[in-house]
């Protein structure tokens, strides 16, 4: 009995951790008019009727660096791979005052030219990426509402 107690605690902690990881992603964003959210998904994903997609994820801020550093590194890396940067990067403060930068890249994909948008937030040890992608013609139609929505994005709920 006494031996089984620590095992039970361990199992409970593991189960709690698993449940926590199964919960909704810790992000919030006002809903862009043309997008629908995958409500049941464990990931933070949105999509328009014509297939423009948006998703948020986290990566390690390692080596630890500031927002400017990462946006610069990302732009250089993408251009080195053959992406074309679409205009200048756009840095802004969210509604709650968090700093972020958006860089958009273009590339041919299939028979169309696609846009890949990357918005970078640096949150302590993590980098939160809000990524959006779609064929240029369709992306351009929702670009403004997407920008407005990303300005309300909060990495921690």
């Amino acid at each position, binding site marked *: 009995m006494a031996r089984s107690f620590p095992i039970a605690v361990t199992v409970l902690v593991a189960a709690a951790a698993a449940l926590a990881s199964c919960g909704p992603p810790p992000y919030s964003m006002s809903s862009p008019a043309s997008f629908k959210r995958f409500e049941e998904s464990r990931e933070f*994903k949105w999509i328009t009727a014509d297939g423009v*997609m948006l*998703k948020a994820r986290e*990566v*390690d801020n*390692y*080596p630890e660096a500031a927002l400017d550093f990462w946006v610069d*590194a*990302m732009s250089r*890396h*993408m251009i*080195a*791979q*053959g*992406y*074309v940067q*679409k*205009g200048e990067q756009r840095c802004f403060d969210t509604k709650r005052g968090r700093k972020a930068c958006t860089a958009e890249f*273009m*590339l*041919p*994909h299939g028979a*169309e*030219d*696609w846009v*890949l948008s*990357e918005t970078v937030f640096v949150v302590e040890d993590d*980098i939160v*990426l809000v*990524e959006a*992608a779609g064929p*240029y*013609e369709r992306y*351009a*139609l929702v670009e403004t509402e997407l920008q407005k929505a990303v300005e309300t994005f909060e990495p921690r709920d």
Partner: protein
Amino acid sequence: MRCMTKHGNPVGCGSPHRRSGAPRRTLHRGLILLSLLSVFILWTAPAAGQQKKAAKPQIQQPAPISAVPTPEDPDAAKGGEEAATPDATGRRTSLESRLILKVINPDDARATLEKKAAELGGFPILVEDASLVLKVPPEKLSALIAFIAEQGLVLEKTLERADLTQEIARLEGQLKSKKEMLSRLRGFFDDSNTEATLRIEQTMTTIVAEIEQIKGQLRVAEDRAKWAVVDIAFQFHERDRIVYVSSPFEWLNSVSLDRFLEEF
């Protein structure tokens, strides 16, 4: 008898009679001729000057650079075939610009750009779903590029300038010499027998073909100097331009469209 100079070199000798009386007579004749010639020159000089003055307004000035044909100036368009487009330094250059323009509606953009090119005195030479090639007078190129940039997002832009002065001069020189050769050969016909005539004819045929080829090359070079070309693509030219490049920052290796689509 041989006459010798004081150095011992042989010289032609006249008769003893000519040696004594002739030089004086020759000198007199020379003086008379010289004075007659001077009088003639003085008499004709003012007349020639007047003729020059009278002829001056008839000298045709070279066509100015702005005489490149435009729809508003149809007369210039007629003369424009001959009037090449040397720049301010007198050099002939070709201009070619390539752009990748992203627009929401390529059909509308294509129509707008064709209309603008026509306004600038240009015309389309290739119209496709994903591209448009326009020719405009070189001095209108900047205006057209600025207008294109207003229509959408310019992703890539290149401008190539090539100096054609040397090429055109070389072709003109070749053409001139071939034509001279041809006219010389024509003169040989009169004094030649049948076999020679056949050979001359064969050579002439070859030269005529070469002349036509040079004329064609010259026309192309002059056309390149006369019109600037703008190649507008509404899509990327290279479909597989992405190459995998590893980043020392681990997370950056996960940023790509393919990965995004796979994981979505």
